């Protein structure tokens, strides 16, 4: 019985390791997502005029972005370690701003290898203003509407089709970096493709549209908006699908499986062997009839 407990203890400890992080991350994302929906301002009535927005955006831009991107968003052409300090924002469009600022990647804490997602600095109104300002610098992709990435208004059959087509497009274009499970993957020189778990559909759409940081573009001429929608639908369905097979061990493929085979499988069974071969408790008494 002792062995049983021990094995169970191991199981849960290791389960907690990789999955707890994920769970906390998911929880965090869910909370931030729901906070977003709760606090997002009612768009219809309090919409400021476009000129106002641009003006406000410029103000914010000058305060927070111009150091790297230049007074007029023309970029700072300093190249350091092969990376431009702040690229030109002319023509990147509102979608890029919404993605970068909305996911907290911009403003950057410091120029570095890779910009990470962090709690956004600006509220939605400010993001919208910044986006409007940058959009005014030159024509670029606009922020997608919900109808662009939602399959809600499709028929059941169309939805099904969209999901399987999205899966194939995802496996062709995205898994090479983001992994079959959307768990992310390594890129050269310390870079990485981030995990797609819990990322809001809008941001996935914008990322494909604008190609943030090292990620290549999947512009509308490359993947049509419908195809992007299908990819998002597939990712959504993956998250909704129960894990038929049990815990996913991080969804990283054979490396984590091998690790579990050794730690849980061999570890547990060697523990069992130690128990089986161990010497039992002895008594100092001798058998009455012996």
């Amino acid at each position, binding site marked *: 019985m002792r062995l049983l407990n021990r094995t169970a203890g191991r199981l849960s400890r290791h389960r907690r390791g990789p999955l707890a992080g994920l769970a906390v991350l998911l929880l965090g994302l869910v909370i931030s997502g729901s906070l977003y929906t709760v606090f997002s301002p009612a768009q219809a009535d309090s919409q400021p005029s476009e000129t106002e927005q641009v003006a406000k955006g410029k103000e914010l831009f000058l305060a927070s972005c111009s150091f790297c991107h230049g007074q007029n968003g023309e970029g700072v052409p300093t190249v350091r370690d092969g990376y431009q300090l702040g690229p030109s924002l002319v023509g990147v469009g509102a979608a890029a701003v919404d993605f970068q600022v909305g996911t907290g990647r911009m403003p950057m804490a410091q120029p570095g290898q890779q910009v990470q997602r962090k709690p956004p600095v600006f509220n939605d109104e400010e993001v919208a203003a910044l986006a409007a300002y940058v959009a005014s610098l030159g024509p670029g992709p606009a922020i997608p509407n919900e109808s662009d990435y939602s399959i809600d208004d499709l028929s059941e059959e169309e939805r099904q089709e969209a999901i399987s087509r999205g899966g194939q497009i995802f496996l062709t274009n995205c898994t090479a970096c*983001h992994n079959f499970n959307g768990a992310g993957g390594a890129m050269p020189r310390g870079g990485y493709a981030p995990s797609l778990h819990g990322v809001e559909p809008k941001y996935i759409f914008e990322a494909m549209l604008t190609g943030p940081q090292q990620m290549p573009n999947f512009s509308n001429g490359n993947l049509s908006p419908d195809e992007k929608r299908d990819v998002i639908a597939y990712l959504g369905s993956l998250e909704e699908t129960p894990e038929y097979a049990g815990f996913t061990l991080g969804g990283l493929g054979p490396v984590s499986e091998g690790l579990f085979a050794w730690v849980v499988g061999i570890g547990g069974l060697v523990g069992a062997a130690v128990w089986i071969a161990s*010497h039992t408790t002895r008594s100092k008494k001798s058998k009455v009839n012996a």
Partner: protein
Amino acid sequence: MSVDTSKVATSNRTNAATASKPGRAGSLASWADDRLGLATAMKKNLRKVFPDHWSFMLGEIALWSFVVLLLTGVFLTLWFNPSMGHVTYEGSYDQLRGVGMSESMASTLHISFDVRGGLLMRQMHHWAAAIFIASMMVHLLRVAFTGAYRKPRELNWVIGCLLLLLGTLEGFTGYSLPDDLLSGTGVRAADGFLKATPVAGSYMSFLLFGGEFPGESIIPRLYIVHVLLIPGILLALIAAHMLLLVYHKHTQWPGPGRTEQNVVGFPMLPVYAAKAGGFFFMVFGVIAIMGGLLSINPVWKFGPYDPTKVTAGSQPDWYMGWPDGLLRIIPTGWETVIFGYTISWNVMLPILIVPPMMLVVLMLLPFIEGWITGDKRDHHLLQRPRNAPTRTAVMVSLMTFYGLAWAAGGNDIIAIKLHLSINQITYFMRVAIFLGPALAFWITRRWCISLQRADNEKLLHGYETGIITRSPEGQYAERHLPITETKAYTLTARERDEVFTVGSDTDASGVAAPNSRSERLRARLSSWMYSHNVQKPTRAELEEAHHHAEHEAELQAGLDHPVDGHQFDDHRLRDTDDVPLRDH
């Protein structure tokens, strides 16, 4: 006499084969013996002695997981369709419905989603495979580290190495069968390996795939290899492995009453059979729980194989990880063109040269060691790893090589999990793969030799009690107490190493002796292997040390508070009657 024979169960040697009053089992046995005549063979084997130690059960994990593989594998064959015929999936898994795939992939999905318990069996089969090979390796390490591969067991070691090779191939063929994206990527890499073979490579690839990669033949061909050819050979070799084990009788750890001439342990019937049988259920149970709780190879997420798709984290199963790691750390551009023919060192070296070479080295280990030591005796007592420092160091060095190559095979996962750069991990590995094993060899050998010294210390001066005494002069000293006779005997129950020396280079008439060059090499290797080792003390040294200790004790006895040291440890406690105590 140390053995109270009245308490020892009577073994087969003293009992007649026929029981005087056959019970039900007896009458069944005689019915069978009238027809099969097995009693002669069985009389010894039913009570055959197996020594009991946890490390002797590692091979059992492999055996039992192989049984689980057979059971679950048969279940899977009932539904699996090893065909590359193209179908459109219309099964239960939504995300792939309407997607074209091979029938083998479609039937794998059918097993996973539409057959109750099918997914469990698939996962158990896969986990059992991973554990099968892992346990073979742990078992191999145990055998090597304890010197169990010495005469007369060299051939069984070779069989074991072949089992490891076949198990790996069996795993690879099985991994490829579902025809999902991950396994297909692996098969394509295997195609690249074949093509890198000089001269015949392209033809080998075309013959294997029935034409150009990927063709429509590879899955059925791998299937028959996976379910018939390799399992057949595996079964035959496992049978030979076990027969030899029974014939040689198991090795045992040295200890009081355990010598080269006997084997001490529990009889096959009932204790050993119960323990082994119980362990089978435990192995089966652990694999079942893993299969039920832990996802392995979720083929539905990879999707069907498509030669234009790929996923991050494309890795083989763990046991193919180390050649894959070697592939990854080969520096850029190792390819030569000679007379217009291409030689791909970047693939040949890590796949076609180093792994087979490693296997050959592994198989030759007992023969190389036997040649160097010139030891032609049978060995049935195991050596503690510390008592064969060079062998232990060689094994640790090989393990380090393996481990580093293995880690290199997961460099992308290490990079994202530890926030490192794959490039830097690769640069590091390129150096570490050479330095690491050398360093490991050196550290391990020194470590073993220190442990040998510590053992001798214990023998000569006793164990450290942790009791500090102050002499009247104010001198502090730690009190040492002698270890028990059992322990002392066990520590000395090992052989003295004899360094092989070359007699004379020339014989009496001044003619160079035949083989003198190889003899000199042998002497050098023997000295390299043994000359640093610490030998156990002689009887004279022991007596001298004990005499010294007694003298000290006499001096102590004159003190006001003689300290025998047992006030502070649990020896006194153990000697009381009512406290249960553990053996050893």
